[in-house]
């Protein structure tokens, strides 16, 4: 069976049809759309293209090749599993936004020209913001607004780049740019870098993901950054700057994850760290490295969603997500802890789990290109990954000191089912890496399970554990926040508001006062000039009509005078 339609169409349809279903069927209906999307992505023939004429332009809405297919499969799959995880959610607008967001991600992945790409890029920005706002509290409202503004800014840069590129070359077709090719390419790169969360343009991620809804965070963790990684791999392969930025990112996230207190913020910083590997892979740019980037994005989406689901279980059942308030919860949710730990083993690169078989491709490709500094720094970052996601977070949430916090709600069974499905995939691809390798964009001859690699990993992980155990109380949560680059737009915000909104408001206010005063004066002058005059003469007492009005003789005299004057004028004429 082969459905030859652009796969995003099912999710767009879903977003609009979902509210029409009765509430009871909605969770099941939700699953149908990503499932249809998944089947389509799976079965579309290679190089299948769907294009349409828009005025004099040809828009390539959908173009399938191996690179886009592997990203498309994982986006549709995660949409499906996140749908199971949010089975209990009764919030239709939120679920519709999630589908629309998925449609955006699939649209970006299969876009064949830059205009189509931009369209879906913005769709993602808008739809995903609702997943943050859907939590409906003050913090989420402002974090969502910041998220939205940053993404609008990124979208504008991308649009500026595309427009410039089009005006210079007349081309809209998506193709790889040579490193540093044109100003337009640089503009596009910065726009994409915002979505990829490359420091210093990353702060939107660690700011907003911890404030999204429990289920919305799963979609968020999977789509925005990874679709941007896809665009990097497609358009900016072998841009050397990406290697440096990627390695920096990988370590940057690690440092901040030490300082983070919110469990979902720890995971958010580790998205930045993990995406760093992928960005570095794009920067290396060899076939092996691009394969590594695609494979790692695939693995990463699976285990990161699993980790966010584990953190979501804690938040859903206890209403808390700060390490400094948690501890000793393990006995209340043993299954969730185990499933989370499978995600943690995967992200840490334990043998038999999927991080092991994908991260190592990127690291090895750095070695093959003799980029030893990059290789060692990336390995250091993976030490940090195990330290935080595998040790710090679970130890201080589920083990360690008992905080006395107990779950107040039961874990919905669907949450555990979704986690189980992801845990299955994380292990499956770890045990059978060839299944994933066969989907990669370039032919690959890579063997992750070598003796050397196993020795290296075992020593690294075991000794990381020992160091953690010695310092485990040093990484306990503290009720503090760590400033990040969002400081640059959050702290001056009141001042900027004062200048750009306060200043303008003041001018308007003064004009308003001036106008209303003059209108009042004119009105008084017109209605009773004598009152005005008398008030000026005797400001100390109120106007008294009997006393202050001119005597009757004045008006009579004036009338007679005018009559006489008119008579005289008419007679003399």
């Amino acid at each position, binding site marked *: 069976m082969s459905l030859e339609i652009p796969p995003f169409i099912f999710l767009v349809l879903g977003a609009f049809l979902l509210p029409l279903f009765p509430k009871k069927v909605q969770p099941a209906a939700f699953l149908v759309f990503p499932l249809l999307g998944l089947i389509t992505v799976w079965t579309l023939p290679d190089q299948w293209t769907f294009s349409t004429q828009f005025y004099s332009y040809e828009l390539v809405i959908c173009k399938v090749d191996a690179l886009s297919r592997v990203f498309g499969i994982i986006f549709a799959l995660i949409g499906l599993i996140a749908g199971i995880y949010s089975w209990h959610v009764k919030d239709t607008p939120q679920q519709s936004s999630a589908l629309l967001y998925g449609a955006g991600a699939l649209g970006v992945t299969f876009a064949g020209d830059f205009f189509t790409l931009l369209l879906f890029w913005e769709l993602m920005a808008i739809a995903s913001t609702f997943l943050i706002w859907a939590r409906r509290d003050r913090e989420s409202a402002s974090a969502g607004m910041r998220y939205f503004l940053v993404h609008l800014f990124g979208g504008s840069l991308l649009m500026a780049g595309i427009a410039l590129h089009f005006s210079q070359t007349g081309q809209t077709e998506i193709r790889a740019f040579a490193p540093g090719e044109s100003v337009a390419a640089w503009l596009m790169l910065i726009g994409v870098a915002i979505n990829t969360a490359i420091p210093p343009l990353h702060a939107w991620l660690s700011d907003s993901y911890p404030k999204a809804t429990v289920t919305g965070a799963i979609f968020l963790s999977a789509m925005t950054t990874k679709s941007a990684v896809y665009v990097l791999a497609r358009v900016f392969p072998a841009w050397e700057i990406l290697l440096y930025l990627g390695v920096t990112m990988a370590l940057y996230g690690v440092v901040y994850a030490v300082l983070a207190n919110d469990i979902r913020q720890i995971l958010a910083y580790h998205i930045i760290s993990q995406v760093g590997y992928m960005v570095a892979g794009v920067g290396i740019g060899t076939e092996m490295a691009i394969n590594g980037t695609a494979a790692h994005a695939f693995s990463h989406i699976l285990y990161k969603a699993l980790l966010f689901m584990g953190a979501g279980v804690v938040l859903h059942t206890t209403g808390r997500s700060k390490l400094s308030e948690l501890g000793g919860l393990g006995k209340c949710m043993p299954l969730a802890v185990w499933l989370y730990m499978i995600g943690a083993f995967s992200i840490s690169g334990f043998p038999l789990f999927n991080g092991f078989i994908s991260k190592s491709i990127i690291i090895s490709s750095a070695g093959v290109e003799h980029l030893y500094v990059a290789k*060692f720094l990336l390995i250091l970052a993976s030490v*940090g990954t195990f330290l935080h996601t595998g040790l710090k977070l679970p130890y201080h949430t589920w083990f360690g000191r008992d905080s006395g916090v107990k779950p107040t709600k039961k874990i919905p069974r669907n949450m555990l089912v979704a986690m189980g499905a992801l845990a299955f995939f994380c292990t499956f691809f770890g045990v059978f890496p060839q299944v994933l390798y066969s989907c990669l964009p370039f032919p690959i001859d890579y063997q992750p399970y070598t003796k050397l690699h196993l*020795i290296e990993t075992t*020593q*690294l992980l075991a*000794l990381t554990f020992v160091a953690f155990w010695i310092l485990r109380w040093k990484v306990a949560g503290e009720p503090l926040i*760590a400033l990040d680059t969002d400081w640059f737009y959050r702290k001056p915000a009141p001042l900027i508001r004062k200048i750009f909104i306060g200043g303008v408001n003041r001018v308007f206010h003064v004009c308003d006062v001036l106008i209303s005063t003059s209108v009042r004066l004119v009105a008084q002058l017109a209605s009773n000039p004598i009152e005005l005059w008398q008030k000026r003469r005797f400001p100390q007492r109120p106007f008294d009509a009997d006393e202050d009005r001119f005597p009757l003789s004045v008006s009579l005299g004036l009338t007679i005078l005018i009559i006489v004057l008119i008579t005289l004028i008419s007679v003399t004429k």
Partner: protein
Amino acid sequence: MKKWHWIALIAVIVLSLLAQFFGDIAEEESWYNKLPAFWAVYGFTGCFLIIVVSKAIGKYFLQKKEDYYDEP
């Protein structure tokens, strides 16, 4: 951590250290792969440094009270 956890951990570490001396490691003859316990030392010092350095950066530069952004 129960006693048998520690025993298992030590056994794994010892095994991985010994494994370096058996069989051929010709596939990638980098100097660091020939050094015994290289990755163990790298993992331990790496983890140690990550914690200590990050905590220091946090303490002296980055960490603020939770209501930092709420203040006028």
